[in-house]
């Protein structure tokens, strides 16, 4: 691998370009109209304009991306996260053009993108799954299925992901009421109105395991992350490792993730997501076949460069280490700094980033694609920066997070900085006693 095209924007494009350069690989950036001045464009060895600002006409335009890769002589394409990263069709187009997709095989992306197939794979790997139903089409079918699954249930889009299109129902009446809306939402979001039911696990934490697998049969995990601090199922704070996890539970959940990756012949970096109940029971939710937003917290507590390993794996090399080499060293927390207005129901707010003072010091890492003076455009997501703070233990990591937040100044757009300052002082967060609905109960 000599040259990789980064089919993404913002902080993850910067992250991939850095990993490529550190590995002696050239990096090609892409950008839309709105992003011509992006930091990743400046850091790359070459840049290609791929279309208008609207994502559908640029970062979601697979033909333009493949053309950009071919025309720049790239031999690989890294999809980052979001956009086309989990679209099997995109991976296939890249392969058909004779290029390497930095990610798993097309068939793996397809299987894990199909919730039913993914659950089937988990069952075969002896990984516990949340009690659920096959797809339901009518209210009668749904009510009958819900009796088996057990209320309360969640209605989920079979083709869904990213927490979108999920609705709860506590009774048969409520189920009958929300099913049509869930179907309509699934159809509009994913062009597929298949809905299935899952038991709603109450009081659970969202714990996910980072796995890496190469093309030589090596599958490892780099421990778990806790992403329970969510708002409308969008993550706001993540931690590694999961706080308060019994060593025996940690071992079981990490082993389960590795078992699933092995079962499906996984190659690449991936994340296996679980719900973890207060009594240590866990259930598989889904596997994300790409790098995650929150990957840095795993990197800083294991000293594994996940993006570098992705590039190695894609180049056909074995992992640079084995499981015995990976140990947990300290604790990390990631705070997502978003251009959202906490006083207006966290409405995403574009604008000019007139000031961006970033914190520093020991145990502070900032991943961002912005510099002061940049415009936060309305066309993409609202994330300004990821503040990753770490230390020898959780208390130090959280103390450094408070210190880092006190140095961080964002002007020109409303942001979640003040929200994070408040959350870090919440007693439940300090003790790690949070679950996925904790934040919503607080706001």
């Amino acid at each position, binding site marked *: 691998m000599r040259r990789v095209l980064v089919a993404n924007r913002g902080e993850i494009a910067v992250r991939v370009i850095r990993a490529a350069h550190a590995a002696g690989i050239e990096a090609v950036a892409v950008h839309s109209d709105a992003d011509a001045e992006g930091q990743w464009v400046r850091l790359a060895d070459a840049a290609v304009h791929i279309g*208008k600002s609207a994502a*559908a006409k640029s970062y979601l335009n697979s033909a333009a991306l493949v053309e950009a890769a071919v025309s720049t002589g790239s031999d690989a394409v890294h999809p980052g996260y979001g956009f086309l990263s989990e679209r099997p069709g995109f991976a296939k187009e890249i392969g058909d053009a004779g290029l390497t997709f930095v990610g798993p095989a097309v068939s793996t992306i397809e299987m894990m993108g199909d919730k039913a197939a993914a659950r089937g794979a988990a069952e075969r790997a002896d990984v516990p799954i949340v009690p659920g139903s096959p797809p339901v089409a009518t209210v009668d079918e749904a009510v009958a299925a819900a009796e088996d699954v057990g209320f309360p249930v969640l209605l989920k889009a079979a083709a869904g992901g990213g927490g979108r299109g999920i609705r709860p129902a506590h009774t048969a009446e409520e189920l009958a009421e929300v099913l049509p809306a869930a179907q309509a939402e699934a159809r*509009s979001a994913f062009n597929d109105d298949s809905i299935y039911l899952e038991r709603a696990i109450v009081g659970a934490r969202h714990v996910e395991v980072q796995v890496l697998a190469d093309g030589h049969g090596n599958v490892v995990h780099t421990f778990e992350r806790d992403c329970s601090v969510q708002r409308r199922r969008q993550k706001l704070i993540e931690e590694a490792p999961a706080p308060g996890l019994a060593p025996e539970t940690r071992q079981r959940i990490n082993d389960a993730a590795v078992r699933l990756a092995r079962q499906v012949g996984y190659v690449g970096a991936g994340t296996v997501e679980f719900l973890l109940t207060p009594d240590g029971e866990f259930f598989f939710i889904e596997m994300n076949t790409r790098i995650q937003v929150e990957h840095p917290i795993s990197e800083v507590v294991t000293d594994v460069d996940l993006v570098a390993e992705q590039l190695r794996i894609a180049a056909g090399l074995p992992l640079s280490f084995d499981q015995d080499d990976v140990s947990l060293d300290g604790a990390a927390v990631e705070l997502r700094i978003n251009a959202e207005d906490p006083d207006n129901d966290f409405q995403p707010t574009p604008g000019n980033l007139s000031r961006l003072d970033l914190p520093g010091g020991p145990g502070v890492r900032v991943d961002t694609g912005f510099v002061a003076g940049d415009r936060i455009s309305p*066309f993409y*997501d609202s994330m300004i920066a990821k503040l990753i703070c770490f230390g020898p233990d959780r208390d130090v990591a959280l103390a450094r997070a408070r210190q880092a937040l006190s140095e961080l100044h964002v002007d020109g757009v409303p942001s979640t900085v003040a929200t994070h300052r408040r959350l870090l002082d919440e007693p439940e967060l300090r003790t790690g006693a949070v679950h996925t609905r904790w934040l919503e109960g607080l706001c």
Partner: protein
Amino acid sequence: MATIKAAMPGVFYRRPAPEKPAYVDDGDAISAGQTIALIEVMKTFNEVKADESGTVAAFLVEDGDEVDVGQDIVRLEG
């Protein structure tokens, strides 16, 4: 000539979903408060509502185009 303006910058859509019909077409009568389009801002969809009643003379922006705050998006007649 009355127009409906974009209240926020983003991507303009004339239909609630790609396979759905447009909210309103040229020549349709609309009433104040009626949803006539969507503007997507950072992955959230915001309804564009008519601020007065009238008849749609013409859309001044194509489906999927970028719009800026204050930009005229619909011309009304009458």
